[in-house]
């Protein structure tokens, strides 16, 4: 009990004094995660909207695959990326393995299906509602996508935040393709796993507190967005 108490105190001290190791890890984590979410949104918003409005053979199969990939095990994603990025793999010459870029790619692979699937569902519902009105205005297919994305913006931000939550909490894939190298690819989740196994609970706990705070902030942001949307009668 005393050990836990002192670990909490030490974690608090590290946070309050902006410990250099801790801040470096937090900033790298945020850089990797935000980049991955940005890429996931860049691909997921238009692709999800396309799946919502387009009708073509094989669409249902793609939708099923995207939905299934929402639950893609991170270690499996990491393993496939490792095979692609390793020196003998097809992308080996790019020398991306064990770099933050590889970690961004890994997290983007996990986030993109979430953003795509949520976008597809939200935009499809909206498209059903707007369908007759849009067609009567001569607005159909790909031309309708920007209007649909804009009107679904509050729901889409929620999807992006869900993707952020998934990426921020992810450990398996970034550990495999990042290697958890000190001062290079060490992020919050991998550090917590490593420092706990080493018995350095204070740093692990400090990072854990940062992660929990981030999670709380994300949820508060989602609630606030929903509240704003309702207040403004945009829903």
């Amino acid at each position, binding site marked *: 009990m005393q050990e836990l108490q002192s670990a909490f105190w030490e974690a608090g001290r590290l946070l309050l004094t902006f410990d250099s190791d801790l801040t470096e890890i937090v900033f790298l984590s945020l850089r990797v995660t935000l980049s991955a979410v940005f890429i996931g949104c860049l691909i997921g918003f238009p692709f999800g909207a396309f799946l919502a409005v387009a009708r073509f053979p094989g669409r249902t199969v793609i939708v099923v695959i995207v939905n299934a990939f929402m639950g893609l095990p991170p270690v499996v994603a990491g393993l496939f990326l490792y095979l692609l990025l390793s020196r003998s793999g097809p992308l080996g010459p790019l020398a991306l393995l064990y770099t933050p870029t590889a970690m961004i790619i890994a997290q983007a692979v996990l986030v993109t299906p979430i953003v795509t699937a949520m976008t597809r569902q939200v935009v499809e519902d909206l498209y059903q509602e707007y369908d007759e*009105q849009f*067609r*009567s*205005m001569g607005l159909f297919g790909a031309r309708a996508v920007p209007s649909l994305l804009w009107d679904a913006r509050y729901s889409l931000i929620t999807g992006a935040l869900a993707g952020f939550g998934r990426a921020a909490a992810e450990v398996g894939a970034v550990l495999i393709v990042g290697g958890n190298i000190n001062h290079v690819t060490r992020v919050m989740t991998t550090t917590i796993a490593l420092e706990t196994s080493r018995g350095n609970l204070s740093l692990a706990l400090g990072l854990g507190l940062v992660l929990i705070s981030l999670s709380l902030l994300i949820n508060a942001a989602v609630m606030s967005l929903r509240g704003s949307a309702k207040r403004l009668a945009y829903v």
Partner: protein
Amino acid sequence: MSTDRSFAGIARADESASTPLLPVSLEDVCFGVNGTDLLHDVSLSIGPGNRTVIMGPNGAGKSLLLRLLQGLIHPTRGRLAWRRNWTSGHSAQGGTPGGATGAMPSGAPPVSIVLQRPVLLRRSVAANLTHALRVLRVPRADRADRLEELLTLGNLQDRREQPARSLSGGEQQRLATVRALAASPEMLLLDEPTASLDPQATHAIEDLIQRSHDRGTKIVMVTHDMGQAKRVADEVVFMSKGRIAEFTPAESFFSRPQSEEARAYLSGQLII
């Protein structure tokens, strides 16, 4: 009656198409879903000018007829022909079966529809109209002036920044109507635009319809409101069970209905 249909100074984008759109002819048009015909052998010619009101009990096929005219649905049999070919955006999927075909519209669709329950975007009043102007490819430099004129037309100046979905029912319907008029359509279709509105809101919508008609827009409106039909209609299409039972001038329809169904409807009997 003026023939300048442009509202808010919005000239039609396809003004080069100088051939009038109307009349539109329906020849033995049927429309069915899952093998069941909901419209049977509808033959009708709607010309320019007169305000046409479509009446009839629920399930008579009034709204289907409007959607056929808008191009939102297509006849399963029969032929629908406009004097000037045009296709709605929907027809990009393959033209109008048995009916009008032609090139994709280059600008504003010549037919606009106001649905019974207006579908407004999750945006402000002004943003809803700006969206319509953008879709109609009105030049960016002209949009602000045209927006102001549409807001004035719908008497919505005080509501411009209000989320459209928070407007009252009457205001929402006014917004939907001026949005439809943004295209300066040659024909305006209205599907029970005043259903569940109070007299004041109904008057505002009827005023908009009248002003649109005065500028040369053909009006085709579905209504269940007998008083409104008498106020608005120049001619009445009476439908029953998916067929046209009567198509006559309004005056003779209300004083001397020819069909059994119309007589029963006007006398307040329940048509089941």
